């Protein structure tokens, strides 16, 4: 017997399920390959978190830019046939090394797979491809149908990772999270024979895979090429933005504790008060060296108007006792709108005038508010680290003091703890069973963030965020068997996988931390075995079947 050159494999193997057979014309299409010799490669081979690739050896060997579904299938099959590891990138916002740490492997970039479509005359179904930026999705659906996809706040984050990981933003309390609205997913999986199989999965076709893709991340199972939403809620007409800020110079432990407890208690007490569900508030806790910290608020009533702001006023009134700063700083009013993810809470925000006698608010159309933010396109970025936690109740004094202690210590310099309101429509227990987001009882969602530029600061910054996080979840209210983490108990609901944190992989209970202690992780393992039998799609925290 002699050697046989590997035969080109047909990249599709329709397997009897609902698949779209590809035409001959489609098969001629080829993705654009950017290899290491290409001048675009330094940009193409990384994402927004400049900590990755972790080392030059971890860099991918090539990037395949896919323009359509057929490109994606061709590229995936080619990569599988070559024995390489594929990682799939939509916008490159992954917080960890899951995509761009791929030694001599292939990054399949679907950022140009970005069509946003709808049915005739503004009706559903609404379809988005994984490379569609959230900002563009909001604009397109607004223009086409005056509906909104309840999703995140960063304009340039794309649907691929955002939706399949859950998807959440300022309308979460009012409308739920993105996957609550998801009707079907188009995905390319790889079967036991190494053949790419296109699938459209929904509640009746590959239902377990569909559930897994409603929060369990596409990166575990295949290459997503489209999301369909049969219906979407109406877009709000307008929003009111407001803010409150506090001066670290006059902050005391008691006052700090009071602010945090007040903030959390409001959402704990109003979780099922539907008229408050239009409030999204983000409290940005940062290090004392930044001078101030604050709360940004975006509000719309359930009818999509802000004609009545009594709910917003009531919320802000809760902080009168906290004596927010009365004197407006020199650059007051020059900031971008509050509530923006990644917004700079280190500077005073509009609305810094609770003590002027009335709350300062800024009114805008919803679409301007939703699409006015940035978030970075190709290139750019910074070094960063993130962590997350879901809270079912407001802060305890011990938790707040733990944060106070760390935030008034230089160790946490540059750290932002974004405490977002949560719950409301999201807290529908029924969705535990048909999505892969089991956190359905939380009223706060925390995102720890640290950004820096210089690699020399890695150790300091990473230690700062880790120490703060560990301290916050080592109080008596934390599960004593899982100290240092917000493990599931009466107070916490673990972490959010779209804010991945590889530090948690040090705990053998990390799957439960992110996916809960119920039936979800076993289901994800089962789906993984069934639809990715060769573990083609893997990363540091992928499902371990």
């Amino acid at each position, binding site marked *: *017997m*002699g*050697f*046989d*050159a*590997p035969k080109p494999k047909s990249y599709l193997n329709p397997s009897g399920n609902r698949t779209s057979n590809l035409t001959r014309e489609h098969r001629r299409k080829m993705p654009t390959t950017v290899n290491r010799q290409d001048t675009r490669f330094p940009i193409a081979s990384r994402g927004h978190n400049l900590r990755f690739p972790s*080392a030059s*050896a*971890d860099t991918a*060997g090539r990037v395949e830019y896919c323009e359509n579904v057929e490109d994606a299938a061709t590229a995936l099959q080619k990569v*599988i046939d*070559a*024995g*390489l*590891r594929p990682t799939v990138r939509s916008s490159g916002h992954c917080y960890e090394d899951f995509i761009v*740490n791929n*030694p*001599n*492997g292939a990054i399949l970039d679907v950022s140009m797979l970005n069509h946003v479509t709808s049915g005739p005359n503004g009706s559903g179904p609404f379809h988005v491809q994984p490379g569609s930026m959230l900002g563009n999705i909001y604009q397109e659906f607004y223009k086409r149908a005056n509906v909104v996809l309840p999703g995140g706040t960063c304009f340039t984050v794309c649907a691929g990772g955002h939706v399949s990981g859950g998807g959440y933003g300022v309308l979460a309390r009012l409308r739920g999270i993105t996957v609550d609205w998801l009707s079907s997913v188009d995905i390319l999986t*790889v079967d*036991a*024979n*190494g053949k790419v199989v296109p699938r459209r999965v929904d509640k009746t076709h590959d239902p377990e895979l569909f559930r897994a893709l409603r929060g369990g991340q596409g990166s575990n199972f295949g290459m997503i090429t489209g999301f369909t939403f049969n219906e979407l809620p109406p877009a709000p007409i307008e929003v009111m933005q407001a803010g409150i800020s506090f001066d670290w110079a006059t902050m005391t432990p008691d006052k700090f504790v009071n602010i945090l407890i007040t903030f959390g208690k409001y959402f704990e007490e109003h979780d099922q008060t539907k008229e408050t569900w239009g409030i999204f508030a983000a409290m940005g806790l940062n290090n004392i060296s930044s001078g101030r910290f604050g709360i940004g608020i975006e509000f719309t009533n359930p009818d999509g108007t802000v004609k009545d702001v009594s709910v917003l006023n009531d919320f802000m009134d809760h902080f009168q006792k906290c004596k927010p700063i009365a004197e407006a700083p020199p650059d007051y009013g020059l900031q971008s709108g509050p509530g923006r993810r990644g917004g700079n809470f280190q500077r005073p925000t509009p609305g810094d005038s609770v003590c002027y006698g009335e709350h300062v608010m800024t009114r805008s159309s919803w679409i301007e508010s939703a699409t006015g933010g940035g978030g970075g396109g190709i290139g750019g970025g910074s070094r960063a680290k993130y962590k997350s936690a879901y809270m079912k109740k407001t802060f305890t004094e011990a938790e707040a003091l733990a944060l106070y202690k760390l935030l008034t210590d230089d160790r946490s310099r540059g750290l932002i703890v974004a405490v977002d309101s949560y719950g409301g429509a999201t807290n529908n227990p029924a969705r535990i069973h048909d999505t892969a987001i089991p956190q359905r009882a939380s009223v706060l969602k925390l995102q720890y963030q640290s950004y820096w530029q210089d690699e020399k600061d890695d150790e300091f910054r990473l230690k700062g965020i880790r120490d703060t996080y560990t301290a916050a979840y080592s109080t008596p209210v934390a599960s004593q068997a899982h100290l240092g983490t917000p493990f599931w108990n009466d107070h916490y609901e673990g972490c959010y996988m779209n804010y991945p944190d*590889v530090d948690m*992989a*040090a705990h053998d209970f990390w799957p439960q931390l992110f996916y809960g202690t119920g039936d979800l992780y076993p289901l994800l393992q089962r789906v993984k075995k069934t639809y990715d*039998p*060769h*573990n*083609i799609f*893997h*990363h*540091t925290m*992928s499902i*371990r079947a």
Partner: protein
Amino acid sequence: MKPGQSNSSRAWTRRSFVQTVTSLSALGGFASLPPVAAASSILGSDSGASSKPSPRFAYVAAAQSIHVFRIAPNGSWQRTQIVSTPSPSALLLSPNQSHLYVTNAVDSFEDRPTGSVHAFTVDTSTGLLTHLNRQGLALAATRPSHLAISPDGRRLAVTSAGATSCNLLPIQPDGSVGRVTASLKQIGSSLHPDHARPQAVHFYTDASILAVDATTDRISSFAVVDGEALALNAHHPTTPGSSPSHITAQPGSSLLFVAGGLDPTITSLRLQPNEPTLLLDLYRLSLPARASAISALAIHPSQSLLFACDATSIWTARVNDSGVLTVANELQHGLKRPASLVVSQDGRYLIATDRSRGALLQFRIDPQQASLAPPIELAHMESPVAITLKHI
């Protein structure tokens, strides 16, 4: 014949070995023999001289550790060091024998789902090991099972059962192992309803690798591209169902031997790097029907003898210049779970590890008779799985 007697002029038959084993068992088994004394007495009586060096040190991968043995000129073995390393599964010395590399068959390393390779510096005079570094493999490359080093000593190839992949790692000038630069995954299945599983790898040039795959019944050829990437060159199919699991060759030789993991067959092949057909099948030897799956394979330095171990026996086959294999002898080894074989460079000894019984056994080779003497037990340890010898 009693242990301690010279057997240099006698070919051992299956029957005589069974008798020996029986008598040893009556005395309480191998464990009743002082290992060092037993080895020494046999080696001391040896009159055969070899132009090739005798082993000076031995390194054995056992449960959570590497055992280092000093081999005296008289052939006695003395354990000099036990070094901890997690779940060692295979080990290999660098070509200049200055460093030892050990695969750790673990599912997680530094909280990531991957196995690792442990590098040690070897003291030239004492043979003692010093930890150098431990490097993770590619993600998902859990439970690595085999490794190979390029002839120039600059690269490691490691196979992983967990990922069904071959990883490429650089060896730094100081001997430490660098980060994985490439991982190549094979997918497919043959008669076996299992995933592709590269069982063993072999560098045939500094930039060319062969990997045998038990579940796709093929040998794959990989090219090392630009010193750091891996590219699939071609597949060489083996007999369906043969489940190739082991590959052995003398360094620099174009003659290769591949053994099946389920099917007790051995195939000789010739490497033809400059020909369109890279591998040429020369001969396929089917062991007698009573033979079971081959668990280890080793080639004599002369390339005239090949040793294959199954559940009950070590089979000695003669190899001619054309690669034709002929069964010459069968020796019931008495091992419970043989895991690996190695032949000393002087061609005098075959050493086997018995994983279940925790024993390290030495068989004296009679090249003329193509036979093995009954084993001498050298040492005990928990679950020895692999062994390599240092000769310089």
